[in-house]
């Protein structure tokens, strides 16, 4: 019996790997039933390894930072003393502003807190591929985090939970090429769909072409009609508007969240409320 040589074996292996990948992709695309057990297990192993690596790197960095902090601590002290003085002055000003804001808050009858149950999470790693814009957070299924839960930062929308693991979860950033959210221009109340461009911006599509509804600098908030993001969360500002006759050719949104420095986020644990016009108006007031 003839045995295949090394060259043939390599070719067979190549074909097997390619066919394996194609079958793997086929098994996932178009499947309506959430992530498979295989996927959850695989992702669990990988994310836990990533979390451990991140903890190790964090430990080494903390030791290094401690060493570096000892050097030049005197200069640091002097600088901090100067900053302290400046900050005290700023604090006085901020107290005055806070008093004014508190009065306005009372007048408008705003509630002081976000009405949803949230959990804080720390970003433990970025994406390992330039094709995906995602981060890994240190909260998972054991903390009540579930797929498609919105993730926000103080400035605005971060994204959604794409894949929760046991103790970690992958969050798809709103700027990912396959991310989307229903948005509304705050000034004109016009709705559209904000889609990730993959390059740090969003494009705003399906806008009405009948009126001049978009201007550079307009604030775009979530519309709350996509069943995922509650209404009123800030998505970003209109950065660029290009028209092609009466219709809009390209509307670009610059997100308010700085994804490169993201360290802590909030996951909205409660399900997104069913949209009603009254609820939407109320939610917008609360969040913003």
């Amino acid at each position, binding site marked *: 019996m003839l045995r295949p040589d090394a060259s043939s074996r390599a070719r067979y292996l190549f074909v097997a790997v390619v066919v394996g990948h194609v079958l793997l992709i086929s098994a996932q695309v178009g499947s309506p039933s959430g992530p498979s057990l295989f996927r959850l297990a695989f992702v669990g192993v990988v994310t836990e390894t990533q979390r451990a690596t991140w903890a190790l790197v964090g430990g080494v960095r903390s030791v290094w930072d401690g060493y570096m902090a000892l050097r030049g601590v005197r200069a640091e002290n002097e600088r901090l003393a100067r900053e302290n003085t400046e900050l005290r002055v700023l604090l006085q000003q901020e107290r005055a502003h806070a008093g004014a804001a508190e009065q306005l808050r009372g007048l408008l009858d705003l509630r002081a807190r976000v009405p949803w149950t949230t959990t804080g999470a720390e970003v433990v790693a970025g994406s390992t*591929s330039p094709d995906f814009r995602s981060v890994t957070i240190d909260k998972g299924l054991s903390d009540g985090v579930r797929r498609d839960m919105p993730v926000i930062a103080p400035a605005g929308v971060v994204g959604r939970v794409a894949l929760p693991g046991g103790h970690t979860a992958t969050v798809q950033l709103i700027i990912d090429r396959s991310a989307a959210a229903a948005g509304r221009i705050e000034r004109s109340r016009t709705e559209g769909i904000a889609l990730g461009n993959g390059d740090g911006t969003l494009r705003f599509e399906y806008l009405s072409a009948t009126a001049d509804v978009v201007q550079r600098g307009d604030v775009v908030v979530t519309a709350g009609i996509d069943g995922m993001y509650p209404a009123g969360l800030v998505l970003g500002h209109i950065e660029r508007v290009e028209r092609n006759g009466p219709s809009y050719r390209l509307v670009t949104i610059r997100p308010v969240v700085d994804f490169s420095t993201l360290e802590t986020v909030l996951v909205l644990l409660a399900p997104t409320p069913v949209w009603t016009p009254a609820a939407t108006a109320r939610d917008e007031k609360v969040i913003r």
Partner: protein
Amino acid sequence: MIALRVVAFVLGGLVLQSALVRVVGGGAIDLGLVAVVSVALLYGRVAGLLAGTLAGLVQDALGGGVLGMSGLGKSVAGYLTGVVGTQFIVTQTVSRFLVFVGATVMNGALFVGLSVLLGLRHYDRPFLDVALQGVGNAVIGVLLFHLIEFLPGAREWWRVVLERRRKRRFH
């Protein structure tokens, strides 16, 4: 031993990419692919194929995408790079640069093509994105090989690699 080196190479590239994405936004460089191509040039097509599979699956899993999308592109790119490395002498800067660009184009064509075909992702300027990433990967890859050649004992090790390739080519 080679398997451990390959795994270390790939995981090192992915960890660096993870840090890079957060600092500079990523996009223009795929260190996972750079690691796969380097492995294929150093250890041959089977190593490149398996390194591509490993790197791609990890990227898909952590990125939240469809498992196998990155793996397919990187496996094919790794295998073909290994074939090119065996059939041709890839020791000059220009030839290495072209190999990295070619591998990026192959990987990009499969990933972007499948993504668009399946309606999973949107690309405004796919050709420009892939071309820019090809140049970025090639610059990093060429610098990496220069660095490897400067390491102690690298000259002898490189001679062994080339000798092994020469034998594969003629037997």
